[in-house]
């Protein structure tokens, strides 16, 4: 008996190993480059394939009405949101959605928001609709605005599978606590539950408990047109369809303008680093929103060699591709540190930086990182940041 099942167990283990590696290879495949439209270089083709769906997007194509046709969220779920023509109270656990709600002028409907990813809760939340400049308000102004409406959560009677939200909690949810907004002095402001909850996640897991009590819209935009889709959904839910349609037209126009100017310029090679953890270098990868922005801004993102699902990238590759611009979208290393990495002193970006510390390697501020990586109304501003780096002569 032992003699026969030993080779079998070895075979099983070898099969397990082999299939793991094969699966990994299949699912982490290098992305297919966009179709080569006649006469375009791969970079130009990438740019067009990022832009085209944005231009083709129209808010009318977005299904869903409050109290009517269900919305379809980014996970493909059909969500029915009850109400008259808009909702009255929103719990928003998605910083970009929070920005959108404020931008559309519906900030008073928010009853709870999550801590922004940057750890500095209110500095980046704009105070109201309008032009780009008025978005950046001081932390104090925003604080006052929101203070009235964002509450500590107290436990209610133990209703299972509801959500605890506090300004301090990270955006991942703790699926076990109750949701009961009250103002700071403890007076209940809202009886019962909010009308809808916005969540950012790639699985339904986090919202699984809440959706039995409250409609949950899950956002997970993977591309620029997804961002526009999300904003349209939000606009419809808060009853600001006209405003959001405006916003989208503005964004489309801006993106088109910028891209047309950058399309004809020579493209520098850009490497955008999103993380540097224990020696592993991360970028956003092909197919990501940031990558699209880089192309629209007139750069050639060398990080597209890895897919956005497994975005760690080998330093050998980076040295080989010799980018002209390195952008640090994180705080785990400094331009000094980057220049000191072994073998990186051959990279043009590093050479340029060593000659002039204002060029070559760019460290984004936290605010700029938000603008670029937060898939919300300031996406154009994010593009402008990149444009300022990649083609300073055009911005």
């Amino acid at each position, binding site marked *: 008996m032992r003699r026969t099942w*030993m080779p079998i167990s070895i075979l099983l283990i070898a099969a397990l190993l082999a299939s793991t590696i094969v699966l*990994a290879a299949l699912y*982490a495949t290098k992305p297919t480059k966009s179709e080569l439209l006649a006469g375009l270089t791969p970079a130009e083709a990438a740019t067009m394939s990022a832009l085209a769906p944005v231009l083709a997007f129209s808010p009318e194509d977005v299904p869903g009405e409050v109290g009517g046709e269900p919305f379809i969220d980014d996970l493909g779920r059909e969500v029915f949101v009850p109400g008259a023509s808009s909702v009255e109270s929103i719990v928003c656990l998605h910083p970009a959605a929070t920005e959108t709600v404020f931008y559309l002028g519906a900030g008073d409907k928010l009853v709870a928001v999550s801590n922004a990813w940057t750890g500095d809760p209110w500095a980046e939340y704009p105070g109201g609709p309008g032009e780009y400049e008025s978005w950046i308000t001081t932390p104090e102004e925003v604080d006052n605005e929101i203070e009235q409406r964002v509450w500590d959560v107290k436990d209610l009677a133990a209703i299972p599978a509801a959500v605890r939200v506090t300004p301090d909690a990270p*955006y991942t949810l703790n699926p076990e606590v109750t949701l009961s907004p009250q103002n700071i002095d403890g007076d209940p402001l809202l009886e019962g539950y909010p009308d809808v909850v916005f969540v950012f996640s790639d699985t339904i897991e986090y919202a699984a408990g809440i959706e039995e009590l409250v409609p949950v819209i899950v956002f997970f935009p993977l591309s620029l047109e997804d961002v526009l889709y999300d904003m349209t959904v939000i606009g419809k839910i808060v009853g600001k369809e006209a405003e959001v349609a405006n916003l989208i037209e503005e964004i489309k126009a801006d993106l088109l303008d910028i891209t047309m100017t950058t399309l004809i310029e020579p493209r520098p090679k850009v490497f955008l680093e999103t993380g540097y953890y*224990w020696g592993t270098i991360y970028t956003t990868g092909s197919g990501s929103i940031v990558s699209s922005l880089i192309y629209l801004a007139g750069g050639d993102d060398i990080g597209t060699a890895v897919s956005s699902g497994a975005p*760690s990238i080998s*330093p050998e*590759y980076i040295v080989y591709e010799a980018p002209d611009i390195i952008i640090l979208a994180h705080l785990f290393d400094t331009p000094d540190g980057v220049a000191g990495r072994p073998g990186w002193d051959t990279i043009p970006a590093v050479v340029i930086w060593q000659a002039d510390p204002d060029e070559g390697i760019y460290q984004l501020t936290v605010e700029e990182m938000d603008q670029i990586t937060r898939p919300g109304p300031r996406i154009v501003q994010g593009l402008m940041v990149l444009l300022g780096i990649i083609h300073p002569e055009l911005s």
Partner: protein
Amino acid sequence: MKSRKKIALILVLLAAVLFGAMLLATAIGAVHIAPLDILKMTLNKLHLAHFDPTWRAVEEAIVFQVRLPCVVGAALVGAALATAGSLFQGLLRNPLADPYLIGTSSGALFGLTIAMIFLPATLSFSGFGITSIAAFLGALGAVFLVYTLARIGGRTHVVTLILAGVAVSFLLTAISWFLLDVMGELHWKAGAIYGFLWGQITAVDWSQIAVLAPIIFVGIILATFFAFRVNAFSLGEEGAAYLGINVERDKVLLLGIGALLTACAVCIAGLIGFVGLVIPHIIRLAFGPDNRLVLPASALAGASFLVLADLLARTILAPTVLKLGILTALIGGPVFLYLLLRYRREYAF
């Protein structure tokens, strides 16, 4: 007992395997560079020949500054872990012992956590980031703590050492995760912790190697010198004492060497498992349990293994980089299972 000649022969063979592995790992990488060019570059560098460069300057930089240090680093880490594993297995008389048993892994994690939360991420000393140094010190500190806890009346019995190691590991790991969670850092630093927990050799530079290589070499050589004392330990601590071994002193010395080797490995590569556990087993099964052969042979075999595993991690899904620790576990796990199945009887005790 193997004769001197036989031991030498086996070691030379293993060294040749290591050399071959390192050659292979230098020739192949995320970026394709013709091996012939690599050969020419190397000969140029060693001033053995003068070829006109048919390659780009950037390729030379990649080979000598990005790739080669990683290959050498992988060899050093593999050797260090395998030696530490054999030492602990021999001293603690337990074939399941691995370099992390007496607290090194949790200590390193703890040091890393403290550094990440309280110190600026960009401090560094002579090529070592503050996190690496903290991991190194944490690992050694934890071993020291385990040792003092296990010491009763001037002696540290093996079982007490292992128990203290487990207890300290639990404690330090829990504190580390607690701190990360409570300080709200988990979201931010999750990537760094993840990278550490699963091990990586992508960013080694020559200055780090210059510091660690002598320490690791000396550690391995010392361990090999004391191999016959480790042999005596297999009779138990009393038996070893009867044979004239100064048990407490040698235990401190050898555990200390093992801990130092492990700390060196952890500080540049993070936690890489299975090398320290499985390689000594394979060597023992192939060549017998005499530590005079097992210690140096494990070092060489561990180095070869990790060099090849690192090669795989760098190239299977190039240019994406796989975590080395995951790869060693994927390979080491089934091998360990196989050994267990095949040699169950010998392990029954």
